């Protein structure tokens, strides 16, 4: 998972080494990130850091939400009438949009209950 440098927290583990413009390694794969690493990476203009592990909590869908995903995909499909979803990247895009729509629905429900 790639994380914007501003969201990197000390203790996260680097999944891919980062080099500067002339090829010096700034942080190696497997390094546990410290505040000092974060400062150095920012000074070098690094914007994203590959971190071990999957999507952060809150991004994942509950089993009920997963079940709703199919209908959401179908609702979004007309937008892809010309693009199609045959290309694997567009399949990923449609899936990401459906998950995004389901999460937005969850936030709306949360706001309605509050």
């Amino acid at each position, binding site marked *: 998972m*790639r994380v*914007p*440098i*501003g*969201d990197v927290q000390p203790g996260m583990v680097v999944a891919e080494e980062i080099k500067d413009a002339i090829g010096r390694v700034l942080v190696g794969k497997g390094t546990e990130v410290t505040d000092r690493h*974060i*400062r150095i990476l*920012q*000074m070098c*203009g690094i*914007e*994203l850091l590959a971190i071990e592990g999957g999507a952060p909590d809150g991004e994942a869908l509950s089993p009920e939400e997963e079940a709703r995903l199919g209908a959401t995909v179908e609702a979004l499909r007309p*937008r*892809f*009438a*010309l*693009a*199609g979803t045959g*290309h*694997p*990247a*567009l*399949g*990923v*895009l*449609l*899936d*990401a*949009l459906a998950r*995004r729509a389901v999460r937005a629905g969850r936030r709306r429900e949360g706001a309605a209950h509050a």
Partner: protein
Amino acid sequence: MRSAAEMVRATTKLASLPSIYLRLTEVTNEPRSTAAEVARVISEDTALAARLLKLVNSSFYGFSHRIDTVTQAVSLVGTQQVLDLALASSVTRAFAGIPPERLDMDGFWRHSVACAIAARHVAVRCRWPSPERVFVAGLLHDIGRLVLYLQEPQAMATALERAARDGRLLHVAEREICGFDHADVGRELLSAWKLPPVLQEAVGRHHRPERAGSHLKEAAAVHLGDLVANAMALGSSGEQLVPPLDGPAWAAIGVEPAFLAELVAEVDRQHADVVQVMLVYDYWSAGEAAAQAV
């Protein structure tokens, strides 16, 4: 129907780049200019300085500490990058005073910003040297449509109707009616403004990146950015459908399909911040300029 060049000539009489951008270009082209000198020019325009500081302190960069001075911002971000961001902010101002009647300007810029963030993220992820340049290209990708809405509102209305009626892409309908599309007009405008060829090509070829020659990558990033922005339906410049993914563009970017999910997340993360900083809610009114000066 007038030619694209004629429409652009009529438009540049109304919309020109502010002198601050031209002065900034001069000082950044000076090989020995320092961050402090660039910062001094930016500070002459208090509103530009305020925007730049807002942007470097937003999710766009995500620095963990606060950046308080323009000099700090210039040295952290780089002079060429600051010039590109100044250009982005200048162009939104150039059109602020002349909103076309039939166009939702807010939706137009929201779409443009979404495309710009996505295109820039492609450049960041692929470690291309100038992400901010790609950002500007994304922000300007549909600028030709502003010219069309301004100069030929009737032709645009017909194009919008036809695209909706036949379920076709708007740029195809434009081409059918005008003989050229908004990408051609945008390229013409950027050329009239004497902006760098990479921007002209990335904007002018975003529907046909394989024609962008040595600027294929930049055009491809804008192409993908436009596709994602349309798919996410964050604002609109008139297009209602997701355009097909261009094969050569996808190959030029060279990422795995899973990257598209990351792109959607990244646009969502930055969009509100960048919209707020870059444009839209202040149309650069005299009132704001006066308020800034106090």
